[in-house]
């Protein structure tokens, strides 16, 4: 039972345009959501997070939106750069559980 889903395995975007990565979850107990970026042969790198008390969090070119009623979150990257090409994982946790539940990842390719 996959509690966190990333239904798009890959996304291709032109440099300078917006990249939108999506994530859906099923567990209503999740209250904290994170996005990680992963390059080949490296560990996941924390990118940005959002608490369930917010619906938006912004950090530079990265913005995460949370729609609790739809159990959906998205990561917007504007403008996209070739160095953003990586696999992006969505993760979620429930208060007090000490563990992250990961989605299966979306491979983003930003081309010139």
């Amino acid at each position, binding site marked *: 039972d996959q509690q966190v889903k990333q239904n798009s395995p890959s996304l291709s975007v032109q440099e300078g345009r917006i990249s939108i990565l999506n994530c859906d979850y099923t567990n209503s107990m999740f209250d904290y959501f994170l996005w990680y970026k992963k390059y080949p042969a*490296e560990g996941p790198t924390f990118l940005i997070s959002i608490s369930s008390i917010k619906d938006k969090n912004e950090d530079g070119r990265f913005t995460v939106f949370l729609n609790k009623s739809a159990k959906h979150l998205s990561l917007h990257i504007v403008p996209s750069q070739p160095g953003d090409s990586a696999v992006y994982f969505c993760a979620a946790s429930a208060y007090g559980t*000490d563990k992250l539940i990961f989605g*299966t990842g979306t491979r983003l390719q930003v081309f010139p």
Partner: protein
Amino acid sequence: DTAVSQTPKYLVTQMGNDKSIKCEQNLGHDTMYWYKQDSKKFLKIMFSYNNKELIINETVPNRFSPKSPDKAHLNLHINSLELGDSAVYFCASSSRETSTDTQYFGPGTRLTVL
């Protein structure tokens, strides 16, 4: 100034052997984790330790035994290795003082069992 480090990065071994993977963090965190990423790229938690105490054990076979000699180290020992143990293993750490949920990952150890 590596934050979370793991050794070795690659490990190739025969079925039935016993092997260990080491993890160290210099972030001053009090909680450490082991995750497994299988061939389908699912990243799943195996164990977590807080202040050297086991907090999470996600129904992992008892051939896997984590050991935390201190807050900065969490090692993973695997007995009687099987083909299905081939995967990438990631160590992570976090701090309950700030946020348990933002975890910082090591570079991973790719284990191949022949």
